[in-house]
Structures are given as structure tokens and as C-alpha cells.
């Protein structure tokens, strides 16, 4: 198992896209250094001010980059499954005394661990920059490492299942793109946008159903920013306060997303264990 995970790392590091991945991160980090410089030259701030500023920068950064980071991570790891399934590779892998579920799970964990470490690198750097510049050290921002990894893990289960069934990296990426940038944002605002346009109960039900069915990487971000800003999080249902027009996120989305992950991976393992290669 460790061997497969280790090799997945090697594969990730050997790929050209990996270089792009880290260049992207390096640019993000450089931009942060630049921006934060401008903020802190304004003079000596009180601790409370700098705390607020840091929180604002962190929230702003996560809001802008969250989906992009997840999508980049998916792109850089999407080919693992199809390349593992190539003729001449998969035969040899299965001929080893390792059970098929173990092969697939190791591959999956390898990708997740790879992204986790990348997140440690990216978010850790940004956190370090912000803390050094502001003098305000608050580790809650580092929670984004875990939440990003979890959001990736959920979306990657989709890559796995599509990779297994179609053996196509491109299809897996396209589906994820659609989910992250089109469907999920749309479903998240369904109450505000779609339901104000349509009154049909069945349509509403379908959208609600889809909303609860699909994972919601974007809402992981809302959870993270709420945690950073010390806001309240509802247990089951997100709510909107009409007066202050503040949105309160609930734990429901991570819970349902993790369920989605488990179901998807269970099916993938089942499918992989039964298939002829």
C-alpha cells in the first residue's frame, strides 16, 4: 500500500502539469507578498485592526482562489487512474499479491496525500507571510488545508469513478469543471435565483434533490471562512438573516459530501474488483 502511494507521488512529481501547478502556487504566494506589503506600510495598527485585516485578506483570498485551487489539484491528478488502467500496466499491478480494493484505495489516498502536502505548502506559505507581515498569529487559517483537502477528496472520488468507467482523463476533468463552476454554484443559490423564477414544485424538488445529492466544494469554503471569522455555523440547515442579509452555513454540506465520497468510492471499489482487464 505504501509502495503504491509512494509511486503515486513519483508520478505526480514526474508530470509536467505538476510544474504548472507549483508555478501557479508560487505566483499566488508572490501576489500575496506584494499585496500584504501595501497594507502594512500604512502604519502601526492596533492588534484588533490587524486581526480584522488579516481575516479579511484570508477570507478574500479563499473566496477568490478556492475553486481554482481545487480544480488545479484535480487537473494535476486526474490522469492517475486512466494511466494506471493502461494495458500492460494494470495487468502487472493486478498480478501482484495485493487485493484490487487495496490497489484502488492506495491510488486514491496517494492522490489525496499529494494534494494535502501541496496545500500545506501553499496555505502554510500564505499563512506565514500574513502572520509575519501583520504580527498577528492565528492558526485558524491553517484549517483551510484540511478543508481544501477534504473538498478535493470528495471531488476526486468523481474523477476515480469516471476514470474507471471511461478510462478518460478529459471526461473526468470536464465533468469536474462543470460540477465545480456551474452546477454546484447554481445549486447553492437555487433558493435565491431559480426558485424565484419557477414555482413548479417538481422542479423545485429536483433542484433540492440535486443539491443534496452532489458534493458542494464551494460550501467547504464558506465553512472555512466562517471558522476563521469565528462566525456561527448551523447544525443542519443554512439560513439567511433577512435583516442583516448575512448567510449562515450549516454542517450539512460537508456531511452530505462525505457521504457522497463514501458511496462513490464504495461503488468504484466494487466496479474495479469485478472488471476484466
Amino acid at each position, binding site marked *: 500500500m505504501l509502495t503504491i502511494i509512494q509511486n503515486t507521488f513519483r508520478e505526480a512529481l514526474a508530470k509536467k502539469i505538476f510544474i504548472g501547478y507549483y508555478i501557479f502556487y508560487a505566483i499566488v504566494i508572490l501576489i500575496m507578498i506584494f499585496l500584504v506589503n501595501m497594507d502594512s506600510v500604512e502604519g502601526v495598527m492596533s492588534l484588533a485592526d490587524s486581526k480584522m485585516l488579516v481575516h479579511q485578506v484570508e477570507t478574500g483570498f479563499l473566496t477568490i482562489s478556492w475553486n481554482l485551487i481545487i480544480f488545479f489539484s484535480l487537473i494535476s491528478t486526474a490522469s492517475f487512474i486512466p494511466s494506471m488502467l493502461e494495458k500492460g*500496466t494494470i495487468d502487472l499491478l493486478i498480478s501482484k499479491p495485493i487485493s484490487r480494493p487495496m490497489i484502488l484505495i492506495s491510488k486514491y489516498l496517494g492522490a489525496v496525500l499529494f494534494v494535502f502536502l501541496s496545500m500545506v505548502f501553499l496555505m502554510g506559505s500564505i499563512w506565514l507571510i500574513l502572520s509575519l507581515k501583520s504580527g498577528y498569529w492565528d492558526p485558524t487559517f491553517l484549517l483551510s488545508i484540511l478543508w481544501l483537502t477534504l473538498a478535493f477528496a470528495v471531488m476526486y472520488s468523481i474523477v476515480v469513478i469516471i476514470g474507471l468507467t471511461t478510462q478518460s482523463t478529459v471526461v473526468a476533468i470536464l465533468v469536474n469543471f462543470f460540477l465545480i463552476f456551474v452546477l454546484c454554484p447554481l445549486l447553492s443559490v437555487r433558493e435565491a435565483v431559480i426558485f424565484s423564477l419557477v414555482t413548479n414544485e417538481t422542479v423545485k424538488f429536483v433542484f433540492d434533490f440535486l443539491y443534496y445529492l452532489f458534493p458542494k466544494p464551494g460550501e467547504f469554503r464558506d465553512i472555512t471562512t466562517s471558522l476563521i471569522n469565528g462566525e456561527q455555523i448551523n447544525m443542519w440547515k443554512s439560513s439567511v438573516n433577512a435583516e442583516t442579509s448575512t448567510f449562515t452555513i450549516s454542517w450539512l454540506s460537508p456531511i452530505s459530501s462525505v457521504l457522497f465520497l463514501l458511496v462513490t468510492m464504495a461503488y468504484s471499489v466494487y466496479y474495479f474488483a469485478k472488471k476484466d482487464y
Partner: protein
Amino acid sequence: MHVIETQNLYKEYTQKFSKQKVNALNDFTFNVEQGEIFGLLGPNGAGKTTLIKILLAITFPTNGSAKLFGTDVKNHKAKTKVGYLPENHKFPSYLTGEQVLKYYGQLSGMSAGTDMNKRIDEMLGMMNLTQWRNTKIKKYSKGMMQKLGLAQSMLSDPDLIFLDEPTDGVDPIGRKEIRDILAQIKSRGKTIFLNSHLLSEVEMICDRVAILNKGDLIKEGNVDDLTKAENIFAIHTVDTLTMDVKQKVLAIDGNAGIGEKEINTEAGIDKLNGIIDSLRSNGVKIQTVNQKTSTLEELFINVIKKDNTN
């Protein structure tokens, strides 16, 4: 206990779009014993690769069962002492030769350390790949890849090795080396299962062969028996044979075919020599003695032809 044991294996592939069915294996039952080099022969598409894949649980049979070392192949533990060289194998191209061996060695259950490194050195040396060990395998030639694949299949010192077209793309010298290596492995009591088209090669190294055609097992037996079955010797003499000499020859081999200056016998080496002694003691001069052995290739072509016309 048999090393390989199969019971009525059937494999039917259904083409995805045409719904057409291909019978890749038809009621295939056979065993392989410890220490044998077993060769599986057959034309393209006969089902050879399919059989190996079923034995390694890469593909599942439609019906029937298979065991390795007495363990059902559905249990991945059956593959603990097994090595495999797939046809057209593909290693991760970003690894070097040495890393490939390390990776697959560990997957086979070897633990990283000096023992494995020693074994890797040994295998690379055996395959003449030592100078390429730190080169990315992207840059390997076909024959080098094949040798690396072989090294991989033998690395963990398995008791059973499946080789699908092992000498594919390897030059004659390399092929000879591979044959020697296989013989050496066999001498250590290991079992080898080999798929090949190169019949002369199979004839040189295999103890037993099976011939597969369109999923049917059409002939199986020891290589010696299969090729000896048609052992015919022909003796040509300088002098015309007298009645007296002909009688003496018939006394040795009653079934001998006798012509004016020719004797054909299928009675084996001892009787052949008896006939020769008798001819010489009667002052008959011999011109040539020819052995008509059918090669495995002749046998193969005959058998396949016969099967296809049926």
C-alpha cells in the same frame, strides 16, 4: 499438489457494440507440475493471453475455476510466489530501470533494503542492463524493455513465472541468454509457464506443450513424445539389397519398409542400429542414414490445419 490447476475454464467475451460473442476459451482443463517448463502454443487470437490473465485473476472466467499452488486464484494470496511478464508490458515511463525493479519488487512483497538491492544488481547484471540502471526507461529500446520486464518477473525469486512472449523483440544473442536463464531457473525447481509463437525456441526449452486453437485445447504432451511420434529413419545403401539381406532386416523389424536400395524403419534407435549392424556384417555399404523427425513447427501447422478443417 499441482502448481497450476484448471477446471473446465470457459471464457466468453462479448463485444461492446456488436454484441457478438467470442469464445476465447472452451472447456479448458489442464495441470502444470512443479519444475516444468510448460509452453502454450497457438495462433494469434487463440486465447493464450486470456488463459494467463485468468490464472492471475486479471480477467475472470465465465465458468470454471483455477488454482495456483492449491489456492483459488480469486484469493490474491495465490499470487504471492508468482512472477509475470505481460505481453506489451508498460512500466511507468518516469522511472529508471532500477526504480522499476524496486517498485515492482516491493509490490511483490519484497522489503526495501540491502537484500533487495543485491537482488536488483544481480538481475540487472544477468540481463546486461547494469549500465542502463539509472536511465529513464523512456529511453530504453524494445529489447531492453523486454529484458527489464523479464528481470522484473524474476526479481522476487518466485516459484512460478508466467511469461507472455518473453523473447519478443530480443535479438538472437539475447534470446540465447534468456533460454539459458530459464534453464537455470528450472534447475532450481521453479516452474515456468510460457506463451510463444517461436516454435523452435519452445522446442528447445519446454518440457511439455499444449496447443490451443480458437479456445480449444487440441493437443497436449511432452515435447519429446510429440515430435518423436513421427520418428522415421531412412537408410540408403550403395549396393542393391539381396533377398537374404532383406530377410535379415525383416527379422529385426517386421514392419520395415524395404526397397531396392532403401530401408525405412520406425522401430527406434536400437533396432535401427541392429539393422545397420546386420547390413554391415553382410558386406552392404551404407550411403546415408537420415532421421525424419517432425519439428514442433511441422506438428503445429498440421494440427492447426486439421483442426480448422474440422
